[in-house]
């Protein structure tokens, strides 16, 4: 639950960050779902190639996407960086009516606008009501923006700091560092394009 919820960041950054996930409903549409999930993944991947994964299988930085698509059983994830491609994908998924549930995360105003343009009326939404408890233990905001892009918590704040250091020392490029950070996110909702922009901001001298 909730793994695409709780992304932090400023509004401008979040405006270019839309994770999408599909999920079968056990007992309702899980029989033979693999082929349906594959059809839907092929549609989504026409519109975004930033990241793609299935947390039971792996992500596109671990194996070829075609191999992942042959192994779907429960669902897959991608991430979009703009509304235009998201709307086009939503429209095609609606038209093809394959029948597996789809969830999109992002700024509500932006996602609702995309839904409206795609002719979709969402039946249910989920809000994030903040982080509570011993907040001294959480990463500072500039690191948290990366860490929260993997809802399973697999992207380490230590790795973010290491990548920042390595970029400053010219040991790695911003693009390669953003991909290195995306690799641990098994399901494919970590947004490497957004990460690259954040890294650029953090390493500007």
């Amino acid at each position, binding site marked *: *639950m*909730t*793994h695409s*919820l*709780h992304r932090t960041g400023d509004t401008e950054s*979040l405006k270019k960050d839309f994770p999408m996930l599909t*999920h*079968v*409903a*056990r*007992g*309702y*549409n*899980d029989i033979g779902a693999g082929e349906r999930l594959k059809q839907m993944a092929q549609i989504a991947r026409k519109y975004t190639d930033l990241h793609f994964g299935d947390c*039971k299988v792996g992500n596109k930085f*671990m194996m070829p996407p075609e191999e992942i698509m042959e192994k779907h059983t*429960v*669902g897959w994830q991608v991430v979009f960086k703009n509304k235009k491609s998201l709307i086009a994908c939503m429209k095609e*998924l*609606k038209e093809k*009516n*394959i029948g*597996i*549930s*789809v*969830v*999109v*995360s*992002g*700024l*509500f105003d932006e996602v*609702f606008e995309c*839904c409206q343009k795609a002719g*979709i009326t969402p*039946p*249910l*939404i*989920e*809000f*994030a*009501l*903040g*982080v*509570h*408890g*011993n907040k001294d*233990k*959480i990463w500072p905001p500039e690191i*948290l923006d990366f*860490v*929260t892009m993997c809802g*399973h*918590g*697999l992207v*380490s*704040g*230590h790795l973010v700091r290491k990548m920042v250091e390595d970029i400053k020392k010219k040991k790695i490029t911003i693009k390669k560092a953003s991909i290195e950070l995306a*690799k*641990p996110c*098994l399901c494919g909702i970590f947004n490497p394009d957004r990460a690259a922009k954040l890294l650029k901001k953090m390493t500007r001298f």
Partner: protein
Amino acid sequence: MRINRDKCVGCGRCVSYCPVGAIQFFQDEQNPKKKKSKIDEDECVECGVCFRANVCKPQAIYLPEIMWPRVVRRAFSDPMVEHKETGVPGRGTEELKTNEITGRFKRGSWGMAVELGRPGVGARLKELELIAMALAEKGVVFEPQNPVTHLFEDVKTGKLKPEVRNEKVLSAIIEFVVRPEQLEPVLQVLKEMAGKVESVFSVDLITHPEEEEKGPALKIVKKMGFPVYPNGKVNLGLGRVLNK
């Protein structure tokens, strides 16, 4: 996770990949001129990130066979592991994702989740128990399909099986449905718990879109001083029943 001391060449490349900082880089007792990586087993949540990172050239990092109750760590921290009770990989359930088919969250009530250890901190399950027991006192009924519910010794009180209390996980989620009259007392409990846990927790609320902004749920949430993020999850309603 473990690191084979004999194979480790002391490059330290694995250290930064650990989400909970459980990999130590220390001076080798047998050869003080060299350093080695070692996993603090008490802090390790068995997420598998260091292993999958594929940064250890001599392949010194390995997945050992782990037994109950330690296996709970992997089940809640490694999304590649599917919970046998729920059939869902990761920590949660289908929740809102498939609600247009399952009808799990009905109008007139709201779905809630409290996720211990998130973001990026990790938590001992005894902290989850602290919150679960306080919520149970307010009449909260825990979601039967959530893997946490299977760890309770007494599902009515939120008391955990004693042997899992000290297990550390990346995160674990308490899921439940609240009736309108329960929301305020539940949020009050969470406010009180915020000062009692050593880790952190994130809170979620599931509602129907017409509830947004002007609905009673968000009014209560704001009155209780909880923030409402401008971003969240939206079910597009594209699923349907296909099994025959």
